[in-house]
């Protein structure tokens, strides 16, 4: 046999080239002409069947990567959702805004509360004004029953607190909008509502007229048990522009001061007993001096306790009557039905803001998932490529 020259080698190599069977090429040509229809009719008709066929074709190892990737993506999604949820509800201070519906129409209500462990219970009462009212009633049973006297400072007080009694201090700011020429009438109605609720007007300022900066402001003290009735009455006077409720649980300080007062009472009783048993003038003077000091302390503690009870039994209410949008003010129960271009722009802005917020949240959820999926997909491609090369040997 002669040595292979270049041309011979190439020619012989080409002669070794495998060629397909004519039957196969004919069949393939037909399929090419038909646009390569899928060979598994079930898979072509039904995506689920196609998926099942694909899963069947994959080995356990091949399925492991997508399965792990899917699991990680789901876990990441759950984590993000939980994180977002926790972020919204965490912290000792809780601020909540809600658009509520008052008797005179839409009213924005924002409520905030801060405190220790008792804050959670206090804030629960924010959710339902009725419950908050009851809390106020419990805080000042004397006022609601009409018994005007100082709180009783008995030793049972702490036990009562432990059973669920809460002392809650409440303050509210409500802003009403009306026409400039209706400020005086609205102010008169505010006075009447305060009177009806047995409240006190600490100070007030009313500027009425048809032109200029007219308006009114009131600083009120309303019995906690009647504050909701009073606020409802204020809401009927004019359109509620905004309302802010704040509560502060003062149960802890009240219990602490009550216990201090009980200790002081016991000290005074002990000193009085000691005074009856003194034998010398010096001892008597010493005990009397300690007794005076203890009584001064007792009075101070009692004053503190009274102040705390007053804070719980009376709610601070600030009422403002504004006329900045006087021309557009709709009296309660009436609807002018006007919808200006400004309103439309405002509504459009609100809608866009909400849409942007939703989009942002969606991105916050989807971005990490997409990143993980991309990473897993890339790693899987690398792995498959490596396995293919290994298959070639």
């Amino acid at each position: 046999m002669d040595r292979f020259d270049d041309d011979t080698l190439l020619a012989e190599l080409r002669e070794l080239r495998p060629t397909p069977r004519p039957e196969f090429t004919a069949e393939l040509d037909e399929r090419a002409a038909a646009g390569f229809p899928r060979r598994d009719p079930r898979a072509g008709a039904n995506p689920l069947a196609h998926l099942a066929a694909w899963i069947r074709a994959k080995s356990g190892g091949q399925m492991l990567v997508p399965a792990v990737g899917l699991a990680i993506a789901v876990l990441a999604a759950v984590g993000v959702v939980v994180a977002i949820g926790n972020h919204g509800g965490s912290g000792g201070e809780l601020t909540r805004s809600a658009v509520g519906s008052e008797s005179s129409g839409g009213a924005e209500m924002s409520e905030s509360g801060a405190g220790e462990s008792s804050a959670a219970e206090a804030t629960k009462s924010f959710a339902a004004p009725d419950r908050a009212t009851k809390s106020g009633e419990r805080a000042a049973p004397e006022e609601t029953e009409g018994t005007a006297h100082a709180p009783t400072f008995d030793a049972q007080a702490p036990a009562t607190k432990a059973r669920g009694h809460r002392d809650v201090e409440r303050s509210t700011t409500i802003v009403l909008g009306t026409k400039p020429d209706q400020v005086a009438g609205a102010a008169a109605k505010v006075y009447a509502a305060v009177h009806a609720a047995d409240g006190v007007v600490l100070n007030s300022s009313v500027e009425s007229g048809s032109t200029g900066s007219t308006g009114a402001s009131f600083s009120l003290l309303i019995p906690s048990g009647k504050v909701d009735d009073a606020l409802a009455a204020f809401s009927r006077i004019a359109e509620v522009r905004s309302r802010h409720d704040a509560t502060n649980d003062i149960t802890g300080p009240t219990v602490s001061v009550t216990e201090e007062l009980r200790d002081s009472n016991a000290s005074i009783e002990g000193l009085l007993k000691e005074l009856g048993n003194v034998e010398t003038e010096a001892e008597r003077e010493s005990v009397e001096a300690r007794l005076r000091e203890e009584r001064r302390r007792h009075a101070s503690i009692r004053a503190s306790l009274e102040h705390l009870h007053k804070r719980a039994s009376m709610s601070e209410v600030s009422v403002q009557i504004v006329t900045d949008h006087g021309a557009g003010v709709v009296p309660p129960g009436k609807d002018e039905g006007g919808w200006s271009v400004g309103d439309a722009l405002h509504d459009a802005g609100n809608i866009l803001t909400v849409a942007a917020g939703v989009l942002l949240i969606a991105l916050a959820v989807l971005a990490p998932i997409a990143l993980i999926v991309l990473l897993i997909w890339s790693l899987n491609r690398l792995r498959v490529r490596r396995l293919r090369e290994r298959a070639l040997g």
Partner: protein
Amino acid sequence: MNLGRRRSRGVSQTAVAEAREAPGEAEVAFDRLYRSSRDDVYAYVASLLHDGPAAEEVTATAFERAYRKRRRFDPKKGEPRAWLFGIARNAALDELRRRGRQAELAAEPEDVDATAVDASAEQSERRLALRAGLARLEPRERELIALKFFAGLGNAEIAAVLGISESNAGTRLHRAVTKLREALDGQI
């Protein structure tokens, strides 16, 4: 005028013909690619699998996959033949993986016997020597030989299929041919 409700008059018979959309640019290009590459793809795949029926199956699968992806092919990224052979290579290697078998170049292609009937004794001897020489090459070297001489790809296309540079493809191919020649010289 409502064209949708207009009907022809005096029509007693309706001829039903298979309605097909006019082939788009991608379809025409793919058809051209299919016709020019069908046998080459089969030759390359059969060289990798050394199994006729499996090679037919993988060749069909490769064209099927390529057809589904035809609109995603970007001519800026390379030659269509290189793209097609890349798909065929992946399909063949997947088949090898599935079977858990090492690739072997078809040292004895199925059509060799047919051509060998009329071949002279010396030709038969040469081909036997060539098959033996090919069997001594590494699988990757045999793949290079198959891509070059069975599929008829240029160095640039081979480089694109294997994911290496063109110069690297040329160097490797030269080494493979040299090694094959040495193996053949050793037999003579």
